[in-house]
């Protein structure tokens, strides 16, 4: 039997039983022993008692998404078997606790988790530690790596806690012993990698870009960004303000931006709905602000802990009146970092809101990444620190962008009413036209200046060209890897506004078969493509059940 070095491991059980921690430690141990990983946790909108899963893809090459098939399933309860037996691959093994779970799956291995925990006088919750030890033994990861991880995780709680966890993990590890397994974590000497979520990558990018101020309100799946900022307030000199609501969140960020700090808010569609009025205020007053919108299925509360790409049209059109906003749609963790950095440059350069649009799948999936290579210098645009006494905040210019002073340096006003170049309120029709046109000119300026709006991957002469955006990138790249014989190209849109009309038109012209793939029912990106290029892509795969795309289903569709 050959040994697989590209496989999926999944742990499933009741919420509150340490599923996330187990998944994180398994994945980290595999990563430290040399593998590439991609993790996706799924959980319902409750804290205790629902069904949680954590799925980790392990590979000897870089991986960009999970796959549907699971090779090793750890079931902590009966649901763990019943809800996932359809996902088991032909060669899968199922590890379960005979004390609480029954299965007729042929290749199943009873692991007496509760019994082992009881032997060490542990709490029932520590069954996952047995599972973790056993899992790592199955895939031939050196116990020393787990030892180190457990030490890092529990050393603050004292040596007794560390030892207790180590004993239980070791018992799980030894139970499996030297059993031969069909899966092995590829141990290679590779560059040190980091296990990081899309939310983490955006936070790091923002901090790298000099974002000093965040004000926001918690909302899944964006909350991790606020937590990250809060955790690093002191060491990185940041302010993270948890506000009374999302309205205050974006407003404080706009206030801080007006004063001269790079500032942001992070939320999901519902919270963004509350921010919409202020978004227009930022555009009218020409104040830089960055908002991360991590999508989840709507409308309304929808499926709070699941994924969808249904807010593209919303963020593009949010708020009354016509105005330019930059919308970035990163597709993987590196692009999240890049967007996190560039959003602040664009916000100051174009003096208008910048939205980073992600989703639950990208924001809360973890991937092994190398330290980011993307670099960009801080570009504060037309910021002037020592303005002349006759400074005019809304001076006309060809590129639509006026010199921007900060309060403290000179007397000036900014107004949410239409205004003249002094910032004084006006209802004069000609001035209204000129100001509206000045702001609108930013689109053309940005369109010329922002590069790499579209990124192409895959065969130079593909049989089928996929048009997608955001997090769908990963599963499409993985579908490419699975495809044998079918040549696939991916046109991934990273910058949705300014819209990459020319780039997409070119790819449409040369496509033998164009396919649209996106995670919403309304084919929102397809509609935009039609609006900007006049081409309707009829051949489309849309998904809107809260689950991310799987490479297998993409490939199946493309082979049709």
């Amino acid at each position, binding site marked *: 039997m050959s040994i697989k070095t590209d496989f999926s491991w999944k742990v499933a059980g009741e919420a509150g039983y340490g599923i996330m921690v187990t998944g994180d430690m398994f994945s980290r141990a595999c990563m430290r022993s040399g593998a590439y990983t991609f993790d996706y946790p799924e959980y319902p909108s409750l804290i205790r008692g629902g069904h949680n899963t954590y799925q980790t893809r392990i590979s000897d090459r870089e991986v960009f998404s999970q796959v549907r098939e699971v090779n090793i399933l750890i079931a902590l309860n009966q649901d763990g078997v019943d809800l996932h037996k359809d996902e088991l691959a032909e060669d899968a093994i199922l590890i379960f606790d005979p004390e609480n779970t029954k299965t007729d799956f042929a290749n199943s291995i009873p692991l007496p988790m509760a019994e082992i925990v009881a032997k060490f006088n542990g709490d029932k919750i520590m069954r996952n530690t047995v599972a973790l030890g056993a899992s790592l033994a199955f895939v031939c990861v050196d116990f020393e790596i787990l030892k180190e991880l457990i030490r890092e995780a529990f050393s603050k709680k004292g040596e007794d806690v560390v030892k207790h966890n180590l004993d239980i993990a070791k018992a799980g590890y030894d139970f499996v012993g030297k059993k031969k397994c069909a899966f092995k974590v590829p141990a290679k000497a590779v560059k040190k990698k980091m296990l990081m979520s899309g939310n983490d990558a955006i936070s790091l990018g923002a901090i790298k870009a000099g974002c000093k101020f965040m004000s926001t309100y918690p909302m899944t799946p964006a909350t991790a960004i606020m937590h990250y900022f809060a955790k690093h307030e002191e060491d990185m000199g940041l302010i993270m303000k948890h*506000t009374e609501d999302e309205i205050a969140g974006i407003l404080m960020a706009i206030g801080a931006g007006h004063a001269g700090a790079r500032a942001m808010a992070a939320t999901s569609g519902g919270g963004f709905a509350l921010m919409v009025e202020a978004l227009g205020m930022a555009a009218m007053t020409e104040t830089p602000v960055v908002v991360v919108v991590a999508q989840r299925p709507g409308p309304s509360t929808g499926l709070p802990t699941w994924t969808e790409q249904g807010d593209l049209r919303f963020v593009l059109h949010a708020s009354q009146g016509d105005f330019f906003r930059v919308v970035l749609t990163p597709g993987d963790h590196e692009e999240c970092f890049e967007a996190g950095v560039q959003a602040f440059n664009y916000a100051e350069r174009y003096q208008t809101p910048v939205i980073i649009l992600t989703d639950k799948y990208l924001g809360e999936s973890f991937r092994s990444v190398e330290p980011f290579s993307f670099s960009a210098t801080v570009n504060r645009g037309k910021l002037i620190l020592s303005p002349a006494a006759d400074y005019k905040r809304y001076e006309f210019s060809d590129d639509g962008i006026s010199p921007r002073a900060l309060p403290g340096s000179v007397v000036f006003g900014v107004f*949410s009413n239409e205004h003249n170049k002094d910032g*004084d309120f006006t209802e004069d029709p000609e001035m209204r036209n000129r100001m509206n046109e000045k702001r609108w000119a930013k689109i053309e300026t940005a369109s010329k200046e922002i590069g790499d709006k579209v990124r192409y991957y895959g065969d130079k002469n593909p049989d089928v060209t996929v048009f997608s955006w955001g997090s769908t990138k990963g599963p499409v790249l993985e579908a490419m890897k699975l495809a044998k014989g079918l040549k696939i190209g991916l046109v991934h849109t990273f910058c949705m506004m300014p819209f990459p009309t020319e780039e997409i038109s070119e790819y449409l012209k040369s496509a033998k078969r164009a396919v649209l793939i996106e995670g919403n029912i309304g084919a929102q990106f397809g509609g935009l493509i039609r609006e900007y290029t006049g081409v309707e892509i009829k051949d489309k795969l849309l998904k809107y059940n809260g689950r991310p795309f799987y490479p297998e289903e993409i490939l199946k569709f493309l082979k049709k």
Partner: protein
Amino acid sequence: MILDTIQKGRKPDWCPGCGNFGILMALKQAVTELKLNPAETVLVSGIGCGPKMPLWIDVSGFQSIHGRTLPVATGIKLANHRLNVFTTAGDGDCYGIGMGHFIHAMRRNMDMVCIVHNNQVYGLTKGQTSPTSDQGAKSLSTPAGVIEVPTRPLSLAIVSGATFVARGFAGDAPHLKNLIIEAHKHRGFALVDVLQPCVTFNKTNTYEWFRERVYKLEDEKSYDPKNKMLALKTADKWNTKIPIGVYYREDRELYSDKVAAIKDMPLVEQNIDNVNIEELYKDFY
């Protein structure tokens, strides 16, 4: 420095006799007397008649949107605490649509002066009743009269954590000026609620109506603004006698005193050119 009543050739577009003229004059005189640098003084406003003030006073201005002055002002102050921050909003703005922000701003105790033009109507939308309108007040939106009892902003402020609570009268600009000066000197969130007659839409609470009722708290020798229970009792006075002056004050640490990032310098002065994130990577290995 002279703060002219006319800025850039424009005159305020308020109705003749509007209470806002008295508020604008008091604010200008207060800023002048305090010798505040106009560039370093930011007046954040909302939407309504009164909040047009930044157009007519020679300090830095930010006209935001209806109900949202306080979060914008908080963001500005947190990013650069060296700025003098004043806010101006109406009763509908601050006590109606912006009520949530109002209460949380008081809990927070940022160092700023919150001026509320309280005319008990929505002026700019033609006279609908506001949260401070008296019960039974009739308007286009309440032809049969207001059913709810009015909100009591000063009582709310005292129990919500405001550390300086005052009420002025637009018909007594010199007294109001002194209140604004005191409010600015107070270290913390200072509410100055201003009784502002709306000569066009409020035919009940007129200059005359107020003149018959207002009296100065400072004339009451025994009044102690540090006495919270007394302040609460005083804040309930309305129908026959209405006190003006400082109702309540307390010393409490500012929100910004506890923010580590701005202990040494304002946030906006920190160098962001090449932030090193190598240390942060360590969390992820």
